[in-house]
């Protein structure tokens, strides 16, 4: 497994898209610092960029990479290797390279913007988002043998988590405004890793005070250490469950 990971990772690092991704993160990161000055504003802008870009890049890049390497995968199958070993190596190497690019790409600007603990938490959450969306991409790739279908559905996933989910939540809140839904909203946010991570990072910043009564309820959970731990565990579950399903599907799949 180590050899495969090593091979895939070196192949990925040489990939032009990854280099462009890294450059993009640097340019936006340092650009924002020079535009908005130091500290919190930059952190919030970087958070917004992470929410938008990380899922998109992870989904699209991973799914294209999987389809491109499909023949290589078939070749490896001729070897006495377990299918799960193959997929796990794929997942690990993609995660290593994409998360690495993210950490270097945003870590450096964050380091210079003295964002402190909240900045570290953003990096941690962002890395977990990487793991989650790479897992979802592999799930889509295995589910759909047809490239267009896989691509389409992965984009749909992106739109769903970034836009549609929040829209539905807003609709729900609008219709059930008369009821005490603050707690419910908290549980609903567990269903979207992007919301969960965003609120977790926001709660460490001054913006928390802007969030009013519902913010106070979030604060009770998200600013305590056990709450932070719970959120990180939930995000990890979000990464592990889709990936373990994809392993199961991959084992049964007619290649």
């Amino acid at each position, binding site marked *: 497994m180590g050899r495969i990971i090593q091979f895939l990772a070196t192949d990925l690092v040489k990939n032009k898209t990854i280099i462009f991704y890294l450059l993009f993160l640097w340019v936006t990161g340092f650009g924002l610092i020079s535009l908005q000055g130091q500290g919190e504003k930059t952190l919030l802008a970087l958070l917004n960029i992470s929410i938008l870009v990380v899922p998109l890049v992870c989904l699209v890049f991973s799914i294209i990479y999987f389809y491109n390497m499909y023949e290589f995968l078939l070749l490896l199958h001729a070897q006495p290797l377990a299918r799960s070993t193959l997929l796990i190596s794929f997942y690990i190497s993609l995660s290593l390279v994409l998360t690495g690019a993210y950490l270097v790409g945003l870590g450096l600007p964050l380091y210079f913007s003295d964002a402190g603990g909240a900045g570290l938490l953003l990096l941690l959450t962002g890395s977990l988002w990487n793991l989650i969306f790479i897992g979802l991409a592999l799930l889509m790739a295995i589910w759909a043998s047809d490239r267009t279908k896989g691509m389409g559905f992965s984009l749909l996933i992106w739109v769903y988590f970034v*836009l549609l989910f*929040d829209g539905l939540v*807003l609709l729900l809140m*609008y219709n059930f*405004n008369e009821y005490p839904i*603050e707690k419910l909203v908290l549980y609903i946010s567990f269903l979207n890793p992007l919301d969960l991570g*965003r609120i977790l990072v926001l709660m460490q910043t001054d913006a928390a*005070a802007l969030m*009013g009564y*519902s913010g106070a309820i979030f604060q009770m959970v998200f600013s305590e250490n056990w709450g932070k731990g719970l959120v990180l565990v939930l995000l990890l579950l979000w990464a592990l469950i889709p990936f373990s399903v994809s392993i199961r599907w991959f084992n049964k799949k007619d290649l």
Partner: protein
Amino acid sequence: MSAWKPFILCLMTLIPCWGNTKTIDLYPGEGTVISDAIRQAAPYDTLLLKEGIYRENSIVVDKPLVLLGMEGAIVDGQMGDEIFVIVSDDVSLENLTLKNVGVSYLKDRAAIRLNRVSNVTIRNNQLLNTFFGIYLQKSNECLVDGNTIRGAAEEESRAGNAIHIWQGNRIRVTHNTLSHHRDGIYFEFVDESYIAFNQSRNNMRYGLHFMFSNDDTYENNVFQNNGSGVAVMFSNRISMENNEFLDNWGGASYGLLLKEISDGIIRGNRFQSNTVGIYAEGANRLIFSQNLLQNNGKAMDIKGNCMDNRIIENNFIGNTFEVLTNSKSNLNHFESNYWSQYSGYDLDRDGVGDLPHRPVNLFALIIDKVPAAHMLLHSFLVSSLEVAERMFPQFIPEQLIDSQPQISPYPYDFD
């Protein structure tokens, strides 16, 4: 001839003092040194307190005297009752250090209480760990200047106010430094007074608390990091100029709370890093101009019951929300402000944007209706909805616009 009258009056009041005023030196000792000296002194004498600790409280000053502290003169109330109770006009209390007044739930104990007097001067004193600092009660024409008042309050219910004025006219409160009390300055039924150059920081509740007081002016004060900011309520014709409202951050904090207040002027103030810069409820006919509102969560929350206010030539820079309101209609006038969120253009290059600016954004309206929607703060959905709404306005108040948004901020000079 009438111009000479004040001079003659002055002379007449001074004549009895000439010749027979003397200075009495006091040294710390056993018993009630200061009280005894006051009893023996003649009116208009000067008591000079030499260096040392005077352990004394309930000192009643009942004749016009000057009490002057040498450096290191400390009056320690030993956590007991009030230290100085001034019941005579024309008293002056200067350069003293007053310490340790005990907390009482029955009586508002103060280090210095002025009771029904006028023309009293409290200057350059240091008040440390006093329950209430200086308490003016039904007094007129007094001066409170250059005092440093630092409390030791830990909870609001056990804390008093640094300067507390209840019923009075023409009082001047200047150059004081107030911290760690419940309210920095508390005004109730105080008219025609002047508050300037004070620094009110780290108080539990308000930096300045204003109730039922008319025709007052406060300017060049700094209110920083207080529990919930500055409150001006139920008052008319107040002028607030060149003050700084800074760092009042928290779930229920604001820079300036205006409630039931009319005909005031708010000019040249700086509101920076407050959760809510200005919160206005029932505020009418105010002129709000040339202020800087920077990096606040919500720069201005102006409720539907505010009427005929003019918000002109202000700088709104880097606030998360520029204006919030709970009403579809707008009865206030916004004009010629600089809004950093303005996204229009200026083709004729006259410094004024060609499109009007709508400072209320859609998300502000949503969270006003659905408070739970706060959880969507900084989400992509909200940003995209806002872009759409700005292009094709549907929900945001039709009339709440600035028809002359500035392209670049006004160069107001704030240090």
